[in-house]
C-alpha cells in the first residue's frame, strides 16, 4: 500500500521551475531513495513534503490524507519527520533536550499545568525524559544525554538528529544525505540503523543520497530526478542500467549528442 503519494507536483520560484509534474510513490514499509545530480530538485521535494514550500500544483497525500496545504508542524503531527543535510540541531541544548523537543507534538499538558507543576505535567515530563533516553539508546549514544549537542562529535550529532526525528513518532522518515561525511564503517552502521528503524519500528524511510553504493545496497525502490523531472524509477538493478540515468550522471558522448541533434 502506498504511504506517500505525490501526484503531478510542480514547484517554481518566480520564473524558475524547480520541479515539473512529478509523480512518485513510497510504499509503506519500504526503504525508498530519491537520487539525481546536484540541483535536480531532491531537497525541494523534501521541502514540499514537510510543508516549507507550497507546490504550484499537484497533490501530496500521506496515508490517504492531503498534506500539501498544511503548516510544517501539522505535517509533523501527521507522522512525517526529517533530518537535514547540514545538521540543524539545537546546538546549545543538551542531546536529551533536543530529543525531548521532538516529543513536543506528542505531549499535551497545558501551559497552566506547566506553570502550576501539576501531577499531570510532572508525569508527562518524566515520560518525555524517559522517551528521550530510549531514543538515544536506540541510535547507539546512551551516554550523550547530558552533553551539549554542539559539543558532540559530528557522527554523534547526526545520531542525535535521528533520535530527535524518531521521537516525533513518524510513519515516514525523510533522510537528507545521511551518509555525507561518514567513513566506510560508519556507513555500515548507518545501513544497519536504517534497517532496524524499518524492521523494528515499522517506519517507512525515504532518503536522498549521493553515495550510490549505499543507495543500491539499501533501497528497494529508487526514483531518479534530473532538472526537476523524474527520468526513471524502479528497482536498483533497473535504475542502474537505465540509459537516461547513465546519461544524467555521466553526460553523453559528443558523438551521441550530435547524432541526437
Amino acid at each position, binding site marked *: 500500500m502506498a504511504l506517500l503519494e505525490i501526484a503531478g507536483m510542480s514547484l517554481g520560484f518566480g520564473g524558475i521551475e524547480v520541479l515539473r509534474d512529478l509523480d512518485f510513490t513510497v510504499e509503506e514499509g519500504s526503504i525508498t531513495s530519491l537520487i539525481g545530480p546536484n540541483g535536480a530538485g531532491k531537497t525541494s521535494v523534501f521541502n514540499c513534503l514537510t510543508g516549507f514550500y507550497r507546490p504550484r500544483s499537484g497533490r501530496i497525500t500521506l496515508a490517504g490524507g492531503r498534506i500539501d496545504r498544511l503548516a*510544517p*508542524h501539522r505535517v509533523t503531527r501527521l507522522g512525517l519527520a526529517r533530518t537535514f543535510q547540514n545538521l540543524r540541531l*539545537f546546538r546549545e541544548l543538551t542531546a536529551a533536550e533536543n530529543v525531548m523537543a*521532538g*516529543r*513536543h507534538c506528542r505531549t499535551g499538558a497545558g*501551559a497552566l499545568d506547566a506553570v502550576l507543576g501539576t501531577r499531570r505535567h510532572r508525569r508527562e515530563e518524566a515520560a518525555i525524559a524517559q522517551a528521550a533516553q530510549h531514543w538515544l539508546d536506540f541510535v547507539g549514544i546512551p551516554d550523550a544525554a547530558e552533553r551539549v549537542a554542539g559539543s558532540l562529535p559530528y557522527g554523534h550529532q547526526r545520531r542525535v538528529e535521528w533520535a530527535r526525528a524518531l521521537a516525533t513518532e513518524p510513519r515516514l522518515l525523510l533522510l537528507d544525505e545521511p551518509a555525507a561525511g561518514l567513513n566506510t564503517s560508519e556507513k555500515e552502521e548507518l545501513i544497519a540503523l536504517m534497517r532496524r528503524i524499518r524492521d523494528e519500528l515499522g517506519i517507512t524511510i525515504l532518503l536522498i543520497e549521493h553515495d550510490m553504493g549505499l543507495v543500491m545496497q539499501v533501497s528497494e525502490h529508487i526514483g531518479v530526478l534530473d532538472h526537476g523531472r523524474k527520468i526513471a524509477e524502479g528497482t536498483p538493478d533497473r535504475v542502474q542500467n537505465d540509459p537516461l540515468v547513465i546519461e544524467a550522471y555521466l553526460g553523453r558522448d559528443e558523438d551521441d549528442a550530435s547524432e541526437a541533434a
Partner: protein
Amino acid sequence: MPLQEILLQQLANGLILGSFYALVALGYSMVYGVIKLLNFAHGDLYMVGAFAGFGCLSLFSGWLGAGWAGIVPSILLSMVAVGMLGVVIDRVAYRPLREAPKLSVLITALAVSMLLENTVLAFTGGQFTAFSTDLGFTGIDLGLVHVTYTQMVLVGTSIVLMVVLELFVSRTRYGRAMRAIAIDQDACRLMGIDVNRTIALTFFIGSALAAASGVLAGVYYGSINFFMGFLIGLKAFTAAVIGGIGNIPGAMLGGLLLGLLEAFGTQIPGIGGQWKDVFVFAFLILFLVFRPTGILGKPEVERM
C-alpha cells in the same frame, strides 16, 4: 541620619526598585531571547498594567476593600488582561513582519509604544492618577531600618514570579520549545512545535510580568500616569543588557543590580538624586563597551 542607617535604607529601596526593574527586564529579555526583537512597547505594557490594576481595584475596593484582598485579584486580572494585550500586539504588529528585516520590526515596536502611551493619554488626560490603597506602614524593624509589610510582599511577589518563570523555562515542554525556537525556528516546525503559538505564549508571559510589576509599582508609589512606562522600559532594557540579554537569571540579576546602583548612586557625594538616571545610563554605556554580552551572557563566537 547615621551612615549605616542610610546604607541599610538604600539597600531596602534598591531591592524594591530592582525587583520592579527585574520583572520588566524579564519580559524584555524573554522576547529578545526567542525572536531577537527589542520590544520597545514593553515598558508601556507595564504602564497599561498599572492602569488595568487601578481599574480593577476601583471596582473591587467597594466589596473587597483596597487592602491585599482587593489588590491580589487586581494584580491577577491585570496580568491576564495585559498578557492578552501582548498576544494581540504580537499577532497584529509583529507576526506579519516575522520574515522582515529586524529594523522594520524595531520601528513597529516604537510605533506600538507611541500608540499605547497616547491611547492612555487620551483617556486620562495626562493627569497623575492617585493609586490609593489601604496598606499601612506597619512592618518590622530590622536593626535601624523599618521595613513595611508592603515592601516585603512586593519583593516577595517579584521573587516568586521570577522563580516560577525560571522553572517554567528550564523544566517544561513550553520552556524547552521557547529555547529551541530561539535557536532554529524551522527545525522546531519540523519537530511539530507550533512556533507562532509558542511565541504568543512568550508575549503573554512577558507582558503579564510587566503588568504585575506595574500594579506593584502603583501600589508602592501611590500614583500612576501614562508616561511611567517610558523610563522604566529603558531601564529594564539596561538591566537586561547588564545581565546578558536573552538570559533569564541575567535579567533578574541585572534588574536587582540596577536598582541597588540607583539607590546607592543617589548617596554618592556630588551625584545626588537628580543624577541617578545619568548614573544608570553611564553604567549601560560602560557595560556595552567592556562587556557587551552582559554578566551572564555567553560571548558570541564570530566564525570566520
